[in-house]
């Protein structure tokens, strides 16, 4: 097991190095410069800034500086937000996105699984149809419509929650609902399908024949087996959800990290894009690493093979 972990670790590090290097050079292939906005700046102004940030140096030299800083865990200063370090921005914005994501996750994970189980257990009945109907809606209605709808009903008409911003727990409820609705819907569908597959398995019949009670069969034999294929997805989902939702954050004016991910690329803020890419690269690689380990723990079959 120790050897296996070590190997995986080395592969992970190489992956991160590849991510950093590829994004560095790919980013520089894009024509243009970071100081372009929709109103023109004089060329000499742009030149001054290019010189100041060392962007006129040869590319290999910039790469070495970048790598050197990276080894020290320093992503550099943003080119657009003068004076702000990328580390500082991540430290300030990431927890906000993470909180929103986790809240949505904590809400959607049990609910999605519960709905899936209920739908499967009541297959072909009214409850099944309404849950499936809900999940089709939830998956197909775009987030920004759900968000506007919730804002209209709960903030403007009922005045229960504020329209937007991120200032107290009350402010987080509408965005959390918006963000989780889609994943509840998606998970309901997945869980329902997985449960239906399991219900007709031989070991379930055996359990029934042994005279186990229905809740025991569901808990011990059906859920445990149905949930396994969901685990590898869970890891990636957590990463996805932590990266922040650009749309939800924008609509609710939440100062999360989602917007930086999108805008730094279009505005060619090299240091910011690289910093965020590497940061999330580490996250994804790390999450995969851990999920692989957990997967082995949960599924006895995998342990046997190993």
């Amino acid at each position, binding site marked *: 097991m120790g050897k296996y972990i070590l190997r995986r670790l080395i592969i992970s590090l190489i992956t991160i190095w590849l991510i950093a290097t590829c994004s560095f050079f790919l980013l520089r292939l*894009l*024509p*243009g*410069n970071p*100081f*372009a*906005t*929709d*109103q*023109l*700046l*004089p*060329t*000499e*102004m742009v030149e*001054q*800034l290019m*010189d*100041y*940030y060392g962007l006129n140096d040869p590319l290999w030299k910039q790469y070495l500086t970048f790598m050197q800083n990276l080894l020290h865990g320093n992503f550099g*200063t943003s080119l657009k*937000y*003068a*004076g*702000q370090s990328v580390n500082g*921005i991540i430290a*300030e914005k990431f927890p*906000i996105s993470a*909180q929103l994501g986790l*809240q949505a996750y*904590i*809400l959607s994970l*049990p*609910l999605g*699984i*519960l709905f899936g189980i209920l739908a499967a257990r009541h297959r072909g009945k009214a409850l099944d149809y309404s849950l499936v109907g809900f999940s089709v809606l939830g998956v197909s209605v775009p987030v920004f419509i759900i968000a506007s709808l919730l*804002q*209209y009903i709960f*903030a*403007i008409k009922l*005045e229960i929650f*504020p*329209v*937007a*911003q*991120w*200032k*107290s*727990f*009350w402010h987080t409820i509408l965005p959390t609902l918006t963000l989780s609705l889609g994943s509840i819907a998606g998970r309901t569908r997945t869980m329902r399908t997985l449960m239906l597959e399991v219900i007709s398995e031989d070991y379930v019949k055996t359990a029934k024949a042994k005279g186990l009670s229905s809740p025991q069969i569901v*808990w011990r034999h059906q859920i445990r087996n149905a949930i396994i294929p969901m685990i590898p997805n869970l890891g990636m989902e957590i990463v996805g959800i932590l990266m922040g939702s650009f749309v939800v954050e*924008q*609509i*609710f*004016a939440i*100062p999360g990290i989602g*917007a930086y991910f999108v805008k730094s690329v*279009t*505005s*060619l803020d090299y240091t910011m894009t690289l910093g965020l890419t590497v940061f999330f690269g580490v996250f994804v690689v790390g999450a995969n690493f851990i999920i692989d380990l957990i997967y082995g723990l949960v599924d006895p079959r995998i342990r046997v093979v190993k």
Partner: protein
Amino acid sequence: MKRILAAISASILALTAMAGCGTYTSDDNASSSALTSSGASAEDSGSQSASEPMTFTFIGGHPVTLNPILSQSSDDGNSFYLLESGLFRYNENGVQNEICENYDVSEDGLTYTFHLREANWSDGEPITAEQFAYTLQCFLSPDMGSPSASTYYDILNAEAFNNGSAQWEEVGVAVLDDQTLEITLAEPTDDFILTLATSGLIPLRQDFVEEQGESFGSSIDSLQYSGPYTLTEWTLDSSITFTKNPEYWNAENSFPVETITLLKVDDSNTAYSMFENGEVDALANVSNQYLDALADYITIETGANGLMYLWINQNGMSEDAGKVLSNNNFRLALNYALDREATVNAITQVDTPYSRLTLPFYDGLNGGSFVEEYPVNSVPLSGDIDKAKEYLATALEELGLSSVEELPELHFVTWDTTSQKLLCETMIDQWKQNLGITSIQLDQYPIGTAIGNYTSNEYDLFAISLSSSLTPWDALENFVNGGDYNAGIWSNEEYDALVAQIQTETDKAKKYELTQQAEQILLDGSCIIPFYGLSTAYATQSYVEGFGLGGLGAGFLFDQLTVQK
């Protein structure tokens, strides 16, 4: 099933726990009251006593940096206006004295002596002439990389110092004593005071700036305040709070509002809802789709924000395109075929169709505006299709082409925002309808790439706005061959010579006349084509007074702002 229930209740517990350790932007009184304000404000109005400090919350563009040396975004300007005091301050009608109590100009118009008033920083330290000189040194120093450097090239040897070919001691900035600053110019100019008022010349304290280093201006702790407000909260791209600075020299007579909060809300629907709900007092920028809904609250400020231009590269991207585009009649045909009024109505509504280079707010010589006193021949705002067709016929003949079908493919380069795409497509459509030209195609890139294409002249047609200049001739300088905004897409020796003459001309009447001639040449050349003036529509609640854009379009004014909720 019990366990699932347990899991759910556990997750609810976790949620509440998380609420305790929140990442929220601020927990001050302003935020906690935001929730109740929507319900309570209606009843409260009127009962609020006049002595209670006024607060003002608005949604607008957020500063990207408050380091004045590296600042380049116009959104930073509003914050500097509130936080710092320059020698002069722009107001509704023009310019007023700020830290400069009075000034003398030498007879040759070259030497300005500024006498500073007794004024303090928010920490009680005095504001001195030395601090202004230090700021100029920062702006101009070649290793500071300040994008503002060229703003101060009027000062003697400033350009040479910025290029590294002169020492700081040779630059025309001298500190006579703590209260006296002397600036010597290279050439006499009329608008130096205007430049000082609208550019970012604020005092800076050397020891502090050096101590902060790279992080200067990136948070509330890395800034010092000489202006009417201090920064008490700043969450990047989210909210920023200004609190009145009692040390400000004119604190008693101006800036009556105690706290100003600037929020950033990117989604225009959300901004609108917050305004409707009474959560904010003003919107600094109302997007088009809400102009009707907010009609009762809106003020539209015209033109001062800059001009949108159509650029035609006479060299073209390809040799074939260059042949066609270097034909002046062809360019005129394109220009005359555009119906500016219809275009602006279709795409932006608030903006003003325009076909001159000089803006309506420039003063003329005899009390009127420059535009009235010095008319030029420009394209009618609704276009002139007959004339356009004539120009096209002549152009085709000169080029030896029998019909428009033989025209080469032309590339209209732009970036991928909806508004920009709409603008370009509308123009292409008019050329198609009015002239039958079908060979112009739209190339969309991400903005950085598109502007890269612009600076390296990799386009046939391009549309982008420029911020407005302070004087008529400032605008002209940008377009000489090799100037700030003309990297060789248009060359006209007569024009370049005229602009050079304008720069050294001291007789005002003569200068205005030459400006008129140069403008005419530029418009006839039809390579750099003014298209419409950018306007700002802002909305204020009925209880807000004195919030607006200054006449110079430099930024919002707060000095007489009152909020009587």
